[in-house]
């Protein structure tokens, strides 16, 4: 279910709002000097006025921009890198129906990132580019500065792959013999 506050809930909140100045003892021990946020925050209590500042000029939406449902709008400025597309885009759009407070937001985004990797490889191939995984992983640096480790890892990988292939072949041979 979408994680938004309904108009009815807003009205309920307004009905139950309490004027603190009517509460006996309110603010008698207030001490503005006791501000552990300073100097990180130069407190002006502007947030008490809500979302009321003069907003910067709105950047035109030239691409699809997803926005958190914990805010009412797209920020005045935003990035236009890699807009949502394909299957990963569908997953991202679904994720943004849920708030940042929800696993249903973050876990699908992690899934979409993984789907995006496969989409990236497909995109490379359809553009006639075979990705050089070894170069992308920086194996040249590994070869130059950590050769022993790289050789060991490759050797272990080759041995494990060989064992797996040999095992699968022996199982196939067994099943053919039974037939």
């Amino acid at each position, binding site marked *: 279910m979408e994680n938004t506050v309904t108009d009815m809930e807003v009205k309920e909140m307004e009905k139950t709002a309490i004027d603190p100045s009517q509460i006996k003892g309110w603010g008698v021990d207030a001490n503005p000097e006791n501000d552990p946020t300073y100097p*990180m925050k130069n407190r002006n209590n502007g947030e008490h006025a809500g979302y009321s*500042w003069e907003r910067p*000029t709105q950047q035109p939406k030239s691409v699809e921009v997803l926005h958190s449902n*914990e805010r009412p709008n797209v*920020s*005045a400025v935003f990035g236009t890198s890699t807009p949502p597309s394909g299957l990963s885009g569908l997953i991202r759009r679904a994720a943004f129906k849920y708030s*940042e407070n929800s696993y249903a937001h973050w876990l699908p985004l992690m899934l979409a990132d993984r789907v995006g990797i496969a989409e*990236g490889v497909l995109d490379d191939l359809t553009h006639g580019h075979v990705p050089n995984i070894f170069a992308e992983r920086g194996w040249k640096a590994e070869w130059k*500065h950590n050769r022993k480790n790289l050789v060991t890892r490759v050797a272990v990988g080759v041995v494990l792959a060989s064992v797996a292939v040999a095992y699968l072949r022996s199982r196939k041979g067994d099943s053919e013999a039974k037939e």
Partner: protein
Amino acid sequence: MLAMNFRGPRRVRIDQKPMPEIQHPQDAIVRVTRSCICGSDLHLYNGSVPDTRVGMTFGHEVTGVVEEVGQEVEKLKIGDHVLVPFNIACGKCVFCQQELYGNCHESNPEATAVGGIFGYSHTGGGYDGGQAEYVRVPYANIGPTIIPEGMDLDDAVMLTDVVPTGYQAAEMGGIQPGDTVVVFGAGPVGIMAARCAWLFGAGRVIVIDHLEYRLEFVRNYAPCEVYNYKELEDVVVFLKRTTDWMGADVCIDAVGAEATGRAMQTLLGKTLHMVGGAATALHWAINSVKKGGIISIVGVYGPIDTLVPIGNVVNKGLTIRGNQASVKRLLPRLIEHVQNGILDPKALITHRIPLEEVSDAYRMFSAKLDNCIKPVLMPPSARI
């Protein structure tokens, strides 16, 4: 133009990408002269940050020359050489007005918990970053700062993130004269935090890590006491013992999600990505600080739950402070410190690598090859 291109966890390459364009009247286009790889880029590189999309360009520590400005840009002109804070801040929202420039509310539509950050996933606003020949810089009247005459570019680029983050780590610690400060992590930010702890009057500074070459560096640079946790049976017991069984006054987590040292944290946070990172350093910080002490967090974690002993926070009466550094707020003071020789940030730079070799640069930094502490990418035009 040439730009770093993310292809998936631990896979990046250099590609030709379209030139950035002015998209907002307060935008500037900057030709990059220096661009660092940050420890927090490794969270993206390793696939730990949700909504990190294939095709994106990382990079949030940048200097460059202004090539083009939007019609509302008044502070900068074409040809200015600027350092660009990693935070994208509007200067108008209530948070910017309170100098919380890392928490701007008008620069990141995708997440309310963090302001916009260059090249830091769509959770950071979806901006392409500066590990490229050119970068779009929004709100050019607010963040970008003209590099003072005579300042070394290597110092300038370190003022975009490493120095303010390390300084704010110490500042958030509320360090009082004589305090014992423990910094977890001897990466660039941890090194700078240890150096800055003295500026606030610390009486003793201890750095914990497991990489000997980094410990050796910070021992001389900060200077400070250093300990390799791999040589300690229990880092918390050791820190208690060395502080007369009281614990440190202030503990700084300068590691974040990529920590090593505890198998369960590593499994859940780094291998399975089931939590917002391996919170080993934070766990140790909470347990090593004294009752009533202060924890300062500048290590970056993902947005989902993180495993820490919160019960001990309550029982020990701890204060936890954390934030992305408010670079713009801190810059005037930090520029003074660099100009007066109090801070020497460029000393942390160990590798200057052509932008075209970005894949190897990430590998070197991530795998800590060749005693790498801080790599800087140099675009072709900056190498002439």
